[in-house]
């Protein structure tokens, strides 16, 4: 029964990891940018939420209504300026630039906020509570909510990409941006939209993480980015639903690791990550690329 509980808890935390990972996966899939600042941006989302809540007194749960558009706007702006500038100089340059961005964000947060941990306290018993199934399985409403949000975000993204005009353009640009230009598409604008979506999802993830746990300026690089990477690699690079599979596998591995020994929680996750990388480098959900 304990194991069943571990698996269920793992699946639920996997939703949060998927939320972290899908933006990373989208930016890589569309513009081949490995955004090393992705984790820090989630933390920025958390801090922006703190600020928004302090100023406007919106309930924590609803802060995303303001935070997500702010972060999406920031994403569009950063893509059109800094990241596009790096892309124009070559894909490798984006690694250096986003790494630099990560360092700048982390240090700016240390400078202007402080090194203390913060969380987005949810004073709402519906969210903080849990219910149990049997004697062993406890389901936290908050984790259930985050999981539901993750699935909704992925479904929404899937629908947007497959059925909307802009989604189609994003896929076309990802396939061949020169050919897209010949159809009148300004690929830089489309990249901006993709980045806006990625930043929006990572802001959601940051808020979710802030409600679930605590964050500090360094959380972005030492936890979130790694989890996001692991989820993306396990699930398969560039696959949207792969991020959920990857997140869930990572979550379950961590829970089972913690069950064996509390200190093995993170290690177990990374062992699975490495095993997948060796055995099935294309990830669980994507087929091996055809040459």
């Amino acid at each position, binding site marked *: 029964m304990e194991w069943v509980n571990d698996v269920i808890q793992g699946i639920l935390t996997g939703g949060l990891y998927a939320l972290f990972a899908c933006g990373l996966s989208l930016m890589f899939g569309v513009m081949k940018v490995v955004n090393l600042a992705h984790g820090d941006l989630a933390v920025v989302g958390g801090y922006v939420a703190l600020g928004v809540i302090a100023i406007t007194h919106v309930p924590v749960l609803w802060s995303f209504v303001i935070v997500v558009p702010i972060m999406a706007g920031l994403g569009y702006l950063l893509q059109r300026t800094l990241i596009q500038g790096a892309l124009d100089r070559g894909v490798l340059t984006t690694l250096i630039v986003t790494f630099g961005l990560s360092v700048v964000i982390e240090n700016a947060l240390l400078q202007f906020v402080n090194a203390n941990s913060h969380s987005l306290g949810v004073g709402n018993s519906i969210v903080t509570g849990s219910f149990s199934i049997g004697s062993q399985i406890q389901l936290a409403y908050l984790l259930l909510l985050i999981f539901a949000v993750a699935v909704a975000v992925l479904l929404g993204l899937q629908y947007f990409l497959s059925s909307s*005009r802009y989604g*189609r*353009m994003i*896929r*076309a640009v*990802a*396939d*061949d941006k*020169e*050919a*897209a*230009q*010949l*159809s*009148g*598409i*300004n*690929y830089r604008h489309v990249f901006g939209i993709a980045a806006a979506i990625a930043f929006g999802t990572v802001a959601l993830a940051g808020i979710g993480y802030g409600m679930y746990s605590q964050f500090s300026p360094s959380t972005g690089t030492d936890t979130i980015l790694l989890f996001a990477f692991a989820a993306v690699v396990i699930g398969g690079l560039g696959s949207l639903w792969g991020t959920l599979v990857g997140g869930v596998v990572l979550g379950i591995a961590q829970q089972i690791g913690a069950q064996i020994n509390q200190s093995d929680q993170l290690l177990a996750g990374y062992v699975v990550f490495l095993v997948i990388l060796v055995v099935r480098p294309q990830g669980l959900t994507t087929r091996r690329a055809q040459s």
Partner: protein
Amino acid sequence: MSEPPSEPILEVRDLTVHHGQLQALEHISLRVFPGEVYAMIGANGAGKSTLLRTISGLHTPTEGSVLLDGKDVTKVRPDRRAILGIGMVPEGRRLFGSLSVEENLQVGASYARKGPWHIERVYELFGWMKDRRSQKTSQLSGGEQQSVAIGRALVANPRVLLLDELSLGLAPVIVQRIYAMLPQILDTGLTVLLVEQDVSQALRVASHIHCLLEGRTTLEGRPSDVDARQVEAAYFGLSGATAAPAEEAQLWSGSTTSSRGS
């Protein structure tokens, strides 16, 4: 054929293009008139594709200018040029591989101008396409892919359609089938500038031919005004061995432009 109107729809003036250090095109000029099929011929590496890519804006010239309807578009981005009416079927087709046939056409129509072409009409032009519209383009044969690439360019309702090596990698019978569509396309008022390695194919469809050799113009004129030997000389850069000296002087000067009713 009637005399072309006096204003060219597309004009290239004194275009020089470099690929890094390498000079790909050297002082190329050409004028394409409405309704024309203007064919660029030449061997591999003659600079034909570079010329089309520069006209569509994917390459930036070192010198010279590109004019659409007399307006200089040399500094205009490729996507803006497409919206202004320069359409292109790029070399190697360059379809969106993860998109279906229909989605490829929809992307082509994203910023379509007003005009006679729409997706249904492309389906009428290529009878097989409608039934297979939900297939991924990677599942299509080369000729079918080329047809989708043409359709994708047509649905944008370009004023000038640039066709880059339609015959590349296709069986001759398929090539002929695709070129047989050209009259139906021209009937809708399009102007075509095409690049073709297959000279006989180009001569069959073109109202004007222009031969490039190592980035320079070696021959220009109407197909009826040039004979096979002249074309051969211009294409391969042969000297007087195959072309009579008197003809050759005319050939290489590129002065045939003046013989057109412009």
